[in-house]
């Protein structure tokens, strides 16, 4: 059974075609080529699937970095340790 962290990381890796070593708190929207609007929608869909949640409009829009995403998911009772 994958941990929440593993699921969270794998959503990023799958959506942006990046490696584990690329994942860091500062990883930000629009700073890598694959995290554009298309990648962002892909990431939202992956996270919703993995955690069985529906992310609100404001959260989709403010989900700007790897670290902010972890804070946002707390609202959906998803703790990423």
């Amino acid at each position, binding site marked *: 059974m994958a941990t929440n962290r593993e699921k969270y990381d794998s959503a990023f890796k799958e959506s942006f075609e990046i490696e584990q070593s690329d994942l860091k708190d500062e990883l930000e929207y629009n700073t890598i080529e694959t995290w554009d609007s*298309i990648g962002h929608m892909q990431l939202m869909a992956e996270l919703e699937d993995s955690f069985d949640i529906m992310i609100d409009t404001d959260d989709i829009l403010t989900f700007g970095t790897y670290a902010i995403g972890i804070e946002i998911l707390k609202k959906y009772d998803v703790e990423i340790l």
Partner: protein
Amino acid sequence: MNFYNELDRFSDRTALITEDIGAISYKNLLAVADKIAGHIENRCLAFIVCKNSFESIAGYVGFQRAGVAIGLVDARIDDDLFLALLESYRPKYVYMPKESQIDGITFESVYSFENYVLFKSLKTMESVLHRDLNLLLTTSGSTGSPKFVRQSYKNINSQVVALAEYLGITSDNRPITTMPMSFTYGLSIINSHFFKGASLILTDASLVDPRFWSMLKENEATTFGGVPFIYEILKKLRFGKMKLPSLKYITQAGGKLNNKLMAEFAQICEEKSIDFYVMYGQTEATARISYLPCEYAQKKVGSIGIPIPGGKMWLEDNEGNRIDSADVAGELVYQGDNVTLGYAENYLDLAKGDENKGLLRTGDIAERDEDGFFTIVGRTKRFLKMYGNRINLDEIEQLVTEEGYDCACSGEDNELIIYLTKSKEIENIKSYISRKMKIHPSGIDVIYISKIPRNESGKILYSELA
């Protein structure tokens, strides 16, 4: 006469609204634009590496007013492709963002405006430009091949007149940018609103960026356009629940919106009193070919509507005979002043005049219903729409073949499939095509296949794939 030379009469009206500066009047825009273009000696070819920014727009407006032939490419263009374009078309000038790269040996900087620089070629080769040539645009927006569509002054003028008429564009409109200006659909919004003295809200932020929505709300945007993917984002963002009272109408083009999404938006827009226009077009027709009048958005879901004002549309069978009965499929043919001059593959083609004579075979298969509304039911050509950009499947096959691998390409819109006979190269090919064609990797599926099915003459049997 180019309408860009008549914008002075809008004087103190707001031409642009940007995030950094705020409102910029027509007077100020034209002063800057003419100053940039003042460094160009006479009619020649100039490239603009485009962004949705004041600098980029000012260069474009200036070049238009100076009678320069303009090639537009997106700032995210692949470096190799950009170099290939410079070699093939030999522009005398290139106007581009400071951070973009250009060969300092063959170009010298002659002027700079804010974050943009105007470069002049040091080579003395002169190319012949046909007097009607106004714009060069790629068929796939931000990506793709070195092939350009040649658009004339008449094309641009007829298109803005038609758009202003059927969309009812006035100087009170404030469109907000959602697409690159090098993409024919994005550019048609810019052209048609300048034509009417409207105010353009410029942003490079996409719809998933909160900055886009604050620009829209604070500046009370009245309209925007979107390719199907933008409508998918809008749905995900629960557009129906957003409070956007300034929006008067929105448009959709750049590929077929699926019927379910179209019906949903027709419904949402009706509830919100926003006019919703589904449209159809091609770069080869300057931009627009047909539109579905907004009052039919719910009644004629799936339809591309009727020809734009001034255009004619009909269907032809395989023998080229006109189909007169309703509900019979045939190739969609369009006639109008917005049908472009033809293609260009290098600078020599820029001397050519009108090769299409106002007639365009669209390559799309359509049906016409009893009320005269058209619906696309298929394609004769092998291409896909990837997030609004047209991708030629044969071209992808060629790119992969050039790398030394056998392959076959198929798929659906937003879902390119590459069948490859080398399993080890799956990841490499995926990232190579993604990089070259600027397609997001999540839209590309590379599948291993032991052998590409072919007939005796070597043609790929696409029906046997998958």
